[in-house]
């Protein structure tokens, strides 16, 4: 096999009913285990879904200057983070355009783990010049599972034999634990916008960990789930995806393909008070002048959609799988932006999309139109600009 398989592959391969796999960072992971991803999706919102997220790039950053290095690279203030905290953060090039996004886990004093979508080892080395810091790629050595959904906590509490309530493990915090004797790190993070955890483990222990979670989780409805289900959930949660919703400035061929964190709705992650970091000068300026673009939600108006289909004698057809193509958004005759991800939300019973809009059109409530192809013809459906996230249950943070 040219592509790599993850440490969980012996288990995930056995579950694959339709042999539907997706490429992710040079690995294959399940698109869906069952023939349809429907039930896998619902398990995220109703019980607990188990995802193999091992393909994430992972780097250990240690040493007295570890925080200094990270603070030079990313937009958030790493120096202020406490041990046990996890930070979601983008990072930028010198022009303030986004390179990548990921999480930083503060594992200990001078000990951090960075995850990213793209390889970043070279970038980290470049930025580490003159700093007392050790960099190590641990992508292959560390396997990771994501357990997401309202029952995720109950399952992990039984599996790890400890309290993981909101008081014991806060949102975006982590803890060391043992599951059936296997040392793991549990972080209260995920890509679904729901109550959920990610479990980090030595790759050699991946299979017993999987077995332990499945066994413990079965009475709670644990369901292995693939990327198709995850894609719907992350759109509901308003979480963006690199190379889909934005291009890394590293890969952009023209300036217009780049985006800044402010344009991507990530202004909250930009700590302009920090002394110095990549892209700061450009970001300070952009903040003053206000970003030209905004990343926002769109909810397609059902009546309008139904009418477009009724005109050709059909009931509405809706995308059950999330799409990831660029779709024009109009205001009157003018194109004012483009949607990059979208699909039917089975939970919200709404056709939703994530879109880049020119800032004046991005005010929540603004009426726009989205292009939609009905029986081979391009039509426009009414849509309304909606604040992100679409779905944000209390249990995520409580």
């Amino acid at each position, binding site marked *: 096999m040219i592509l790599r398989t993850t440490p969980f592959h012996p288990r995930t391969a056995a579950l694959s009913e339709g042999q539907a796999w997706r490429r992710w960072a040079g690995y294959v992971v399940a698109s869906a285990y069952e*023939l*349809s991803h*429907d*039930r896998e999706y*619902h398990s995220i*919102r*109703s*019980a607990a879904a188990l995802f193999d997220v091992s393909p994430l790039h992972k780097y250990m950053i240690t040493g007295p200057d570890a925080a200094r290095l990270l603070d030079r690279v990313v937009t958030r203030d790493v120096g202020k983070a406490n041990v046990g905290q996890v930070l979601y953060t983008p990072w930028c090039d010198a022009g303030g355009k986004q390179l990548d996004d990921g999480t930083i886990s503060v594992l200990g004093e001078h000990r951090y783990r960075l995850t990213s979508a793209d390889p970043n080892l070279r970038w980290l080395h470049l930025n580490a010049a003159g700093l007392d810091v050790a960099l190590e790629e641990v992508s292959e050595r560390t396997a990771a599972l994501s357990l997401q959904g309202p*029952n995720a906590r*109950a399952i992990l509490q039984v599996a790890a034999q400890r309290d993981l309530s909101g008081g014991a493990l806060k949102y975006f915090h982590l803890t060391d634990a043992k599951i059936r004797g296997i040392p793991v790190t549990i972080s209260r993070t995920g890509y679904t916008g729901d109550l959920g955890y990610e479990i980090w483990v030595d790759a050699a222990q991946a299979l017993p960990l999987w077995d332990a979670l499945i066994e413990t989780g079965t*009475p*709670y*409805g644990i369901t292995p789930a693939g990327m198709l289900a995850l894609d719907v959930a992350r759109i509901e949660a308003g979480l963006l995806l690199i190379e889909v919703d934005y291009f890394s400035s590293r890969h952009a061929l023209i300036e217009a393909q780049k985006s800044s964190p402010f344009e991507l709705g990530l202004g909250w992650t930009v700590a302009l008070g920090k002394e110095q970091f990549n892209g700061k000068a450009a970001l300070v300026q952009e903040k003053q002048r206000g970003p030209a673009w905004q990343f926002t939600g769109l909810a397609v108006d*059902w009546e309008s959609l139904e009418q477009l289909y009724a005109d050709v004698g059909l*009931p*509405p*057809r*809706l995308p*059950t799988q999330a799409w990831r193509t660029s779709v024009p958004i109009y205001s009157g005759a003018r194109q004012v932006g483009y949607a990059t991800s979208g699909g*039917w939300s*089975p*939970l*919200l*019973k*709404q056709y939703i999309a994530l879109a880049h809009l020119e800032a004046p059109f991005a005010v929540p409530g603004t009426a726009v139109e989205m292009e939609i192809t009905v029986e081979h013809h391009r039509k426009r459906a009414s849509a309304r600009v909606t604040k992100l996230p679409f779905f944000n249950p209390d249990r995520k943070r409580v």
Partner: protein
Amino acid sequence: MAPPHTYDAIIIGGGHNGLVTAAYLARAGKKVLVLEKRPRVGGAAVTEEVFPGFKFTMFSYVVSLLRPEIIRDLDLPRHGLHVLPLESTVTPMENGDYLAAWGDHDETRRELYRHSPRDAEAYDEYGHLMHHMAHAVRPILGMVPPDPTSLDPRDLLGLLRLGRHFRGLGAERLHALVKLMTMSSADFLDEWFETDVLKATKSASGIIGTFLGPRSPGTAYVLLHHYMGELDGVFRAWGFAKGGTGAISEAIAAAARGFGAEIRCDSAVARVLVKGGRATGVALENGDELSARVVVSGLDPRRTFLELLDERDLPAELVADIRRFKFRGSSGKVNVALDALPSFTCMPGVGRHHRGAISISPSLAYVERAYDDAKYGEFSRRPYMDIVFPSMIDPGMAPPGKHVMSVFVQYAPYHLNGGWTDAKREAFGDAVIDTIEGFAPGLKSHILHRQVLTPADIERITGLSEGNIFQGELTLHQLFFLRPAPGFAKFRTPVRAYYQCGAGTHPGGGIMGASGRLAALAVLGDGA
């Protein structure tokens, strides 16, 4: 001068339709009060923890055709509505084989092919036709039935639209529609299929809630309902509600409260107050009187007209019509708490079939024989059953590792020879469990608790007359402009300011909410 009314509208009965009416009226800015006699809202759509840790969808157990416009208008997902997929149906056969319909088309086709290559092909054609028919009939669910005898321009317009609609179907589909309206489901299916167990399972959906058998004329029409659910397709108005059907009621109640409606439980209404041919409020059983500009009854036609009103306030023909209105509850419900899932002989062990429906309908003769018992006043010794394991779809319905089993049973006639007694109820429960045990040996050893509900119990607990789950049989002579009575199918009554919103009006039962919505629109249209 009359004192000002306390409420714009009082809704009698907090079933799902009453709640829908309340929510729409409150949404329009009306001051609304819902009065429910039980300690919780929902009527027959309730989830109750009957046995500690085990939640039962006491009566109604699946969402069928909940109208998409209601889900949107009331923003029900934000109020907690989450419909989960219920994808398969497995029918165990008496020879140890089974027939399965899975969520995946190829898989279902292959399974049918095993029984009959011919039926495997016919199945797609049949599905295609039914899809078209359902598409044709569905708009009727959302329309106020026009009266064909009336010369009112609105009725004429409605009839004209309806006429155009049906002419637009074309000859082949119109013929099929007439067949569906008149034939028995068994006869209709005979025209398509040869596999007996397939016909038995499909025809069973035509008899639910009626006092008819699969060979009784007029049962074919209900086959369409299943396809109407599929039309909503990705919208998924068909399935199992997380938290059981009570969660649907709670979501609608939350929406109604969000719009400002007041909901009072433990408040049974004794009668509607009428002055000069106009409803002015209600009297509660505790003697309190509440005034309102409009009163809406969500109860069934018998109670709406004959119990809450004085017959002298009604035209004699209507009284006679309502007395003749057929309820004839024919189904019961057995809810079981289990310490482990039963293993079916045809599919041993625990599997995905436990996440779908198990239909006890091994042959047409079996289902018809079950009806034969009921025809002569007995419960079926070997009944038709629709079984689901809610805890396999929503694990929150039972403690971890334990399960609940919901068994819809037909037939259990309301008018049982000698009447229902505790002993008869238990004998009925035994017949149900014994029958399932025949297909799943060992079931009995897993039972922790069982709740048996006969039509008499359904009537006693929910108030539904004769325990009919649809507030009156869904048979052709009781549908559309005849539901509940000719001339009064438009949610209004002969008493001014008194309306009806329950499943006893068009378009009938199931957790659709359609009548509740249409009734609210009628109230608002009258400028109340």
